[in-house]
């Protein structure tokens, strides 16, 4: 074999990238392999060429792919742009897979630097990014701060002026805290009662802690419901914010919730918590999130992982602020009170002193003649200065009674003369010395002098008045009279004269005073007062009076009256009086006196007052007048003819004719004022032919049927209508009689009655008969075509209308009746009905007394009560049924028997409806008693009935008990019937368990209740 090297095609060029492989070692290795394959080959290997293209080819064959891959990766790593692209593709997932803690640690410095850098570069960007996160947080924080401020302000204001406030101010000053802090500390009393930590996602309770003594319902349910309500509010109002309900308030209770990312803390607080408490809760919530974030995140309802949380929450429930209730500060209060009392007393005293001084000053000011110019108080001393009139009150003296200490008063007074009227008056009194008869007084600021004084004093006074006119008050002396004796006497004389002049019947013609003598002359009526006697009491000296009086007759009515009375002597029956200056005479007087009075009246008519005597009457004349009135009344009366009448000696005589049918003259006297005792009458009877009297007589004698009517027509008597021929004949005879002198009787208008009319008359008679019948009411009746129709109501108990037809001449065949039955309220019928319905016992009598139905007698109580019921019913119809006279039937004998029956019970064994054999003697005795009772009752007119009531015990179903009780009653009825008791007297009912004899709580009770009881009723 040749040793030539196999023509291996070598790469024409060396590998572009010599990787520095130990080629020699590789070559040796290859040779080694080759020797193993062919031992001959070893000779060929001498050395290794430095660049053997075959080696290169081998390398390519073995690791060529890796080399190219490697070079690609190398290229990738070497080229930064490519490397960035590649790492960017895998970075997110790499970061996601990296352990959190390490990644966070690694990234933190870079992120911090990046943020820092970003803020330095442009703070705006980061602000924009964080804005949505910060804003709600800031808002909430500010809101809380404002709340806190307001709360503090509120409380501060509330307590600022109180006793607490004062105390707290001291505390603030002592502790160096602000006042509002102290206020909040004391006023916000609260207690955190519960704290819930709730999983935000599921609403499940993570932890719950409670303060001592606080209770609540199941916290699990509460926490779920709280988060449901959070959701509800959020959904309902479409609130996007990730926070929750901050506060729920219910009376004293507040729920505050702090929302964290994973859990919500809800605190239940009683009282008035400070807003700062929010912060505490938030801190606790943050701490819980910090410490247990992983457990919170993975919370699936298993709270065992979050056990430590409760300890954190516990710090919340321990929060409270209690009202420090200190004892009442008695000492402070007492001290303050003491200071107040002392201060008050001092203040009051000084005020009172000032008040008194002021009262004194105002008293001085009010005092006339004193003018206060100045006054003041200084250092407890009083100073006063001014003017005073010497006549005014002494200011010093005025001090007494004012309680102002005179020693502390310093006064300075200057004298002056006051022009006040009362001072002027005093001074005038002193200077003028007025006589006692003069009185000086002040009237409306004027000084008035009144009275009498001598002329010299008056002159003095006048001078004083003139002086005063310059500035002083007016001094009026006009009312002071100058008194001399002459003037006084003249005055009295004048008074006397005017008195005389006023006197009626005295005329003063002349009067004068001359030389102290008084002269008077005039006329006087002798009937007037005596002028001399009038002097008395006038203080005019009669000796100095010279009178001349001439008599005259006064025509003044009162004097004329006097004179008339004196001259005419009027009888007592006449009264004279003056009416409006006329003299009037009234009353009765004989004609002679009247004549004299008339003469006097005529005399007076010439100048004197009128004398009116028209009201004086002569009594005889009046009686005659009345008599004439009576006579003329008789004259106008039909059937009376007055023949003669006269008056003699006061007696009246009359005679004439009168028809007996005319008015009675005697009775006509009444009301005429004619004394019947003075009347003497003589009357003769006659038949008046005046038509009305004739008519009366005809009516009385002829008995005209109803169908005939009489009337007077122009003094003729006319008969009209229908009458039977017999009557017409009689009337005709009467007419003939009258034709001799009497008025005409015209019967031509009376027609003969037809047979139909006669029948109708009979029918009417029948109808009238029916109508008179009690218990029958005719509603309608008529005659038509010879047939009679009648309809109405009839009581079944009334007479039969058909039967009443007999004897009326009405043909029954032509009568068509329609009667409806009704119940008449006629007592007769009512009695009949009562008898039928009440069936009164024989011992009761029903009778009608004056339209009332009266029941009298004895009856059983049952019957009486039925009768009473009937009486009440009837009273509604206006019918009286008097049951007051009914007496209850004496059933004494029956009563003992009844008691015996009613106390008997038939007993039964449990579940049995047939009584046991031991009950048979009881049944025998009972049957005898019932029979005896029924018989006795019947004798007394009453019916006895016996009610058998079955009972059961409460064992078993109610329906079964009801039927068993009824069956027991039925059995007893059959057994009594077998013993001869009439079955119609026995009634049965089952009461079940409803009427037990004894309360059922024992065996004995139920055996007592299984029974049949009997009650007796009387009808």
């Amino acid at each position, binding site marked *: 074999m040749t040793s030539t090297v196999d023509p291996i095609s070598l790469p024409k060029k060396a590998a572009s990238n010599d990787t520095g492989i130990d080629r020699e070692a590789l070559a040796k290795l290859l040779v080694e392999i080759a020797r193993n394959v062919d031992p001959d080959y070893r000779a060929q290997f001498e050395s290794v060429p430095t660049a053997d293209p075959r080696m290169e080819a081998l390398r390519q064959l073995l690791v060529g792919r890796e080399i190219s891959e490697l070079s690609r990766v190398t290229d990738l790593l070497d080229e930064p742009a490519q490397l960035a692209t590649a790492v960017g593709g895998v970075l997110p997932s790499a970061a996601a897979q990296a352990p959190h803690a390490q990644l966070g640690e690694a990234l933190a410095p870079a992120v911090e630097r990046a943020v820092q850098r970003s803020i330095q570069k442009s703070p705006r960007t980061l602000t924009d990014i964080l804005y949505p996160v910060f804003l709600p947080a800031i808002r909430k924080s500010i809101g809380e701060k404002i709340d806190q401020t307001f709360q503090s302000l509120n409380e501060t204001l509330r307590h600022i002026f109180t006793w607490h406030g004062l105390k707290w101010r001291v505390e603030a000053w002592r502790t160096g805290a602000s006042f509002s802090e102290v206020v909040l500390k004391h006023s916000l009393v609260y207690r955190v009662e519960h704290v819930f930590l709730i*999983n935000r*996602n*599921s*609403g*499940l*309770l993570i932890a719950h802690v409670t303060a001592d003594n606080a209770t609540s*319902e*199941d916290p*699990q*349910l*509460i926490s*779920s*419901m709280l988060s*449901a*309500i959070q*959701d*509800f509010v*959020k*959904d309902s109002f479409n609130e996007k914010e990730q926070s929750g309900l901050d506060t729920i308030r219910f009376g004293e209770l507040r729920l505050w919730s702090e929302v964290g990312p994973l859990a919500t803390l809800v605190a239940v607080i009683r009282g008035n918590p400070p807003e700062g408490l929010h912060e505490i809760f938030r801190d606790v919530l943050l701490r819980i999130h910090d410490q247990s974030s992983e457990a919170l995140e993975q919370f*699936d*309802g*298993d*709270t*065992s992982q979050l056990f430590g949380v409760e300890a954190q929450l516990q710090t919340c429930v321990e929060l409270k602020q209690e009202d420090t209730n200190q004892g009442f500060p008695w000492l402070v209060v007492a001290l303050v009170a003491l200071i107040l009392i002392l201060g008050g007393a001092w203040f009051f005293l000084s005020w009172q002193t000032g008040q008194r001084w002021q009262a004194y000053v105002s008293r001085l000011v009010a005092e006339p003649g004193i003018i206060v110019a100045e006054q003041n108080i200084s250092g407890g001393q009083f100073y006063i200065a001014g003017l005073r009139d010497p006549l005014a009150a002494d200011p010093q003296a005025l001090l007494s009674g004012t309680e102002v200490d005179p020693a502390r008063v310093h006064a300075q007074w200057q004298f002056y003369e006051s022009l006040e009227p009362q001072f002027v008056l005093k001074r005038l009194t002193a200077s003028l010395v007025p006589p006692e008869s003069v009185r000086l007084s002040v009237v409306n600021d004027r000084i008035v002098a009144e009275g009498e004084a001598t002329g010299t004093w008056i002159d003095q006074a006048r001078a004083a008045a003139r002086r005063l006119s310059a500035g002083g008050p007016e001094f009026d002396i006009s009312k002071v009279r100058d008194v001399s004796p002459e003037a006084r006497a003249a005055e009295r004389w004048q008074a006397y004269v005017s008195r005389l002049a006023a006197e009626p019947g005295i005329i003063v013609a002349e009067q004068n005073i001359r030389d102290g003598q008084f002269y008077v002359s005039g006329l006087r009526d002798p009937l007037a007062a005596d002028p001399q006697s009038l002097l008395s009491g006038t203080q005019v000296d009669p000796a100095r009076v010279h009178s001349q009086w001439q008599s005259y007759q006064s025509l003044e009515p009162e004097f004329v009256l006097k004179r008339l009375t004196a001259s005419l002597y009027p009888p007592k029956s006449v009264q004279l009086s003056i009416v409006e200056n006329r003299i009037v005479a009234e009353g009765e007087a004989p004609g002679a006196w009247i004549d004299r009075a008339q003469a006097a009246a005529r005399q007076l008519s010439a100048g004197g007052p009128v004398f009116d005597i028209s009201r004086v009457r002569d009594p005889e004349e009046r009686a005659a007048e009345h008599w004439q009135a009576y006579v003329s009344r008789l004259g106008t009366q039909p059937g009376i003819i007055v023949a003669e009448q006269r008056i003699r000696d006061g007696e009246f005589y009359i005679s004439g004719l009168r028809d007996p049918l005319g008015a009675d003259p005697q009775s006509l006297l009444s009301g005429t004022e004619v004394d019947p005792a003075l009347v003497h009458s003589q009357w003769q009877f006659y038949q008046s032919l005046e038509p009305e009297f004739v008519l009366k007589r005809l009516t009385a004698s002829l008995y005209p049927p109803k169908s005939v009517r009489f009337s007077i027509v122009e003094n003729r008597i006319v008969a009209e209508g229908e009458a039977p021929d017999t009557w017409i004949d009689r009337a005709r005879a009467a007419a003939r009689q009258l034709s001799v002198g009497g008025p005409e009787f015209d019967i031509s208008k009376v027609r003969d009655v037809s047979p139909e009319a006669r029948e109708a008359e009979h029918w009417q008679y029948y109808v009238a008969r029916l109508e008179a019948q009690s218990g029958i009411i005719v509603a309608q009746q008529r005659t038509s075509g010879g047939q009679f129709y009648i309809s109405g109501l009839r009581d079944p108990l009334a007479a039969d209308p058909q039967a009443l037809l007999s004897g009326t001449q009405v043909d029954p065949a032509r009568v068509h009746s329609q009667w409806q039955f009704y119940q008449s309220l006629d007592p007769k019928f009512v009695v009949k009905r009562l008898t039928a319905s009440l069936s009164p016992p024989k011992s009761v009598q029903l009778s009608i007394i004056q339209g009332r139905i009266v029941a009298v007698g004895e009856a059983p109580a049952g019957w009486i009560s039925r009768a009473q019921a009937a009486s009440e019913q009837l009273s509604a119809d206006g019918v009286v049924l008097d049951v007051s006279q009914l007496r209850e039937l004496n059933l004494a004998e029956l009563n003992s028997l009844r008691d015996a029956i009613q106390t008997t019970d038939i007993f039964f064994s449990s579940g049995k409806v047939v009584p046991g054999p031991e009950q048979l003697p009881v049944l025998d005795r009972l049957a005898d008693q019932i029979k005896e009772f029924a018989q006795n009752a019947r004798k007394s007119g009453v019916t006895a009935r016996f009610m058998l009531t079955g009972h059961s015990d409460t064992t078993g179903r109610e329906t079964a008990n009801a039927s068993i009780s009824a069956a027991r009653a039925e059995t007893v009825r059959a057994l009594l019937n077998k013993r001869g008791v009439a079955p119609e007297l026995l009634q049965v009912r089952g009461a079940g368990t409803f009427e037990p004899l004894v309360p059922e709580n024992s065996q004995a009770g139920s055996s007592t209740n299984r029974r049949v009881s009997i009650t007796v009723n009387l009808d």
Partner: protein
Amino acid sequence: MLQKKICMLGGFSVGKTSLVRRYVQSIFSETYLTTVGVKIDKKNVVLPDKTVDLILWDLAGEDDIGSFRVSYVRGATGLVLVVDGTRAATLAVALTLRERVEAEFGAMPFVLLFNKSDLADRWAISDSEIDELRQRGWQIYLTSALSGEHVDDAFRQLALMVTK
């Protein structure tokens, strides 16, 4: 303490509330259903190895699916779907409600209760229909609020499912 939030879903008047009334602890009155739209009860279920409190959110029944408050279901770990066996339409309502919940919060274990099983004469759901649903692996119970039949079983089953 192990608790699980369970939502009871069903159409109007299917008897959810009366179904659980006798078997749960409750402190809230039924007026919560009409006011807040949810009433919360607690059912304590004792399992062999643990005890679990099922916090039952009884959501107001609405046939109008639109007004259903999905947010109440957040955080729930299981559902009780209630169908009125006498009204076939309520099955569709229950299934739709479940779909809505799953779309929002992902799949969760549930039991399906056909209620009013005591009203046999008015029963409106065929056995084949129920069998078909059972074949999907669903836990189905025929219940009666009147007799309380199977109610406890259903809660027990659900408790097992949610604590697995």
